[in-house]
């Protein structure tokens, strides 16, 4: 009985793993093949990767899109971590009844679907564009400003701060550090793992975000990677090899971030759920 259970566990997990990995393998292999071979179901590595890449960069401005996506994701991640950790720290360390009430109101924003926000946000940035073109529709601030502060991240930092050893703050005060000094010199270095986990989550969702950039970025030179890929994917005579090359390239940064920081990620998540 026990042996059967064991066998079942391994078979089941292997099948689930295979199903999870297979689309990746197919995507990688297809990026190295000609479009015709992809449609024939060729599952071996081909020799057309360089050619696909050349075709891709000839048809679309991949470099610009990559740079746009990188700018947006990095700025979003830095701002998100800073603002959410300041707030999480403030709510937990300087806890009062009034602040708890504010915190609960902020949490309610997690229930607001983006679908309900997109129309008024678009109208907001369209009207800002009349007086401040640098902040309006089709600009970097318009993509970043409404999305970088999330109640989820504030909650995440607050939960993790519960485990932060407060004696460190007392020690810092005795050493003459001011409140911001305590935060930047003591809290931040101590909470590295939490920052890493929060950073991964934020970077990934920002790099992959689609709907808001689709609405607010209108000219081709502002487009991000997901917008370009979506366009490629909806063409009527798709070149599968080229599209899969684009898909692979779009996945590299998030996959890299994940694999480089996987340990911190798991540790951070585990800490936060406790």
């Amino acid at each position, binding site marked *: 009985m026990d042996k059967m259970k064991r066998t079942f566990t391994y078979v089941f997990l292997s099948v689930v793993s295979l199903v999870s990995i297979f689309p990746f393998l197919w995507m990688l292999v297809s990026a190295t093949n000609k479009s015709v071979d992809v449609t024939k179901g060729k599952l071996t590595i081909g020799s057309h990767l360089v050619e696909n890449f050349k075709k891709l960069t000839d048809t679309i401005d991949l470099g610009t899109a990559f740079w746009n996506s990188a700018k947006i994701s990095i700025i979003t991640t830095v701002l998100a971590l800073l603002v959410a950790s300041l707030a999480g720290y403030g709510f937990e*360390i300087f806890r009062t009844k009034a602040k708890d009430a504010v915190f609960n109101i902020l949490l309610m924003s997690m229930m607001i679907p983006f679908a309900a926000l*997109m129309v*008024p946000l678009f109208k907001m940035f369209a009207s800002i564009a009349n007086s401040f073109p640098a902040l309006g529709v089709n600009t970097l601030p318009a993509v970043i400003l409404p999305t970088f502060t999330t*109640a989820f991240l504030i909650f995440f930092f607050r939960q993790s701060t519960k485990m932060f050893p407060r004696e460190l703050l007392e020690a810092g005060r005795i050493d003459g550090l001011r409140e911001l000094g305590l935060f930047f010199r003591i809290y931040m270095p101590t909470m590295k793992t939490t920052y890493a986990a929060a950073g991964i989550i934020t970077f990934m969702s920002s790099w*992959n975000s689609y709907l808001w950039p689709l609405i607010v970025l209108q000219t081709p030179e502002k487009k991000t990677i997901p917008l370009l890929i979506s366009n490629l994917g909806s063409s009527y005579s798709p070149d599968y090899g080229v599209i899969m090359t684009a898909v692979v390239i779009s*996945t590299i940064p998030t996959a890299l971030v994940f694999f480089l920081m996987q340990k911190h990620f798991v540790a951070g*998540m585990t800490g936060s759920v406790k």
Partner: protein
Amino acid sequence: MKTAKPGIKLMNKGRLTGWWFIAIAVIMIAAFYFYPMIQALLLSFKSGKGANLHFTGLDNYKRLFSDKTFLTAVKNTFIYLIIQVPVMIVLAMFISVLLNDSKLKFKGFFRTAIFLPCVTSLVAYSIVFKYLFGADGLVNMLLTKLHLISAPIQWITDPFWAKVTIIIAITWRWTGYNMIFYLSALQNIDNSIYEAARIDGASSVRQFFSITVPLLKPIILFTSITSTIGTLQLFDEIVNITKGGPGNATMSISQYIYNLSFKYSPDFGYAATVSYSIVIMIVILSIVQFKAAGEK
């Protein structure tokens, strides 16, 4: 004089400092969540094309009930919700219980492999799935070779199978994500509870339902609420796999709002009304889920 009542001074100072720490976050969330929500509410009572909006009272809300596209989108969204969310949550929980076995080999490999889909962007994986499930795609090729089907399934262009494709795709993308929450919760359960149960002769099925499920209840609630909110907002997958078709057979509410605002001649007022219907559904469903979790 510095030593006089240092405690109170520090506390008052501390209280004010605390507000400075949370100020930016509060302003940002007020400006980009709550303010637009109020704007959307006001908009939902207005109608008209583009910028020519005028007050029409509850007309938009009445229109919802006779709007066939809206009703189809709601129906589709609920089909995704009722089938996909439970399947995914049970699967995530089951996988994490298997993975939590301390004697299991290759644990790291399995965990990473199953979490891997989460690193892909919704757009990227949607396109991969669109081609894999094409009429002459790899899935049909494999099924034909295994003699499971005689004619290719129209995964993308048949109204029924298109929904199935969407459900398979979302399950593939999000099961690993939910699994992480269960895994970290399971690691916090004291192993001695299971040992005691084993000594009492409880089977593993019994252990699962009498120990694991009750202890995981908060996580089950968390994952089902976040998945419900996610499903009600479904957009990227639909647009990139089926474009809402065939007809409107896979259209989601979010896609309909997008179409109303940015694709057809814009009717921001009515779009805001449709978006409020999602808010209402999220609130109702979350209350139902909280109640269901609380009563057991």
